[in-house]
């Protein structure tokens, strides 16, 4: 019994040592600078696109802006939050995937349902014309 729990405690110790690699994988100066450089570019380009109106088609501009935002979120996750599939035996990644699925359902579901609700509502008068 006691020997058993000792063995378990040493296993726990090993477990703790194993966890230490999370702290070690906390990024280097280089990774922070790469992340920062990418973020600056990925922030500056959409602002520039919208402020100058270089692309006249608004829909295309919106799509590019959204795509750049998605890329920048990934850059932040990797270079600043040090996301990887190994940390905490993959549980952080699992939680992230679950959250992303929830966010996608909440966002697309709300927008989709409310859009159709608006389209199928009785035609409304333009409120700005009401005296």
């Amino acid at each position: 019994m006691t020997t058993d729990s000792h063995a378990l405690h040493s296993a726990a110790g090993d477990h703790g040592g194993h966890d230490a690699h999370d702290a070690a994988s906390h990024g280097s100066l280089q990774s922070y600078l790469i992340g920062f450089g990418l973020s600056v570019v990925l922030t500056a380009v959409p602002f520039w696109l919208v402020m100058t109106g270089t692309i006249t088609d608004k829909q295309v501009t919106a799509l590019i802006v959204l795509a750049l935002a998605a890329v920048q979120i990934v850059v932040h996750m990797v270079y600043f939050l040090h996301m990887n599939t190994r940390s905490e035996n993959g549980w952080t990644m699992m939680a992230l995937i679950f959250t992303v699925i929830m966010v996608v359902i909440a966002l697309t579901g709300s927008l989709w349902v409310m859009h159709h609700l608006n389209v199928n509502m009785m035609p409304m008068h333009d409120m700005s014309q009401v005296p």
Partner: protein
Amino acid sequence: MTVAVATSLTTEPVFHLIDEHAHPDGASTMLGFWLYLMSDCLIFAILFATYGVLGGNYAAGPAPKDLFDLKLVALNTTMLLMSSITYGFAMLTMEKSQVRATQAWLAITGLFGLAFIGIELTEFAHMIHEGATPQRSAFLSSFFTLVGTHGLHVSFGLVWLVTLMVQVARYGLIEANRRRLMCLSMFWHFLDVVWIGVFTFVYLLGMLR
């Protein structure tokens, strides 16, 4: 016979396997904090969805084009991005156990965060002064809720930052303080990720609407 009874009385019967082992202090804190951040992410997702649904309902009031100043938003974004990288430097100096350098980088991070909050409050004050209050339209209600919640998070992050600076000044970079600083690091970078969503969905796409 009697011997067998005696042994069965002295040895306690075990009905379960001991599979729970002792964890080192704070070993699960980072995962737990990450789960908190994910739940926070859901709060912001709901606020983004609300803004997405109501963002076009101006009630004949001001639209994004009348209100937003993209130069100010770009400046604000720069402040938050700078605070993110300086916090990263604070983490790097923390790993080298340089207390003074860590404190200095934390202070710089705090100043950038303070600048962000200051600029945001100026923007809000300007909008409210122009009559674009949260009560004006559904667009403005959802705008103030979403952006205000993010600002509130940054404000509490600043309170946390100052608290940790006092802790580090008092007790140095002990194990507990390192763990706290790593939690705040995740919190701070997470807020920067949320801000990417805010300036894209609210400000940039609002100007394109």
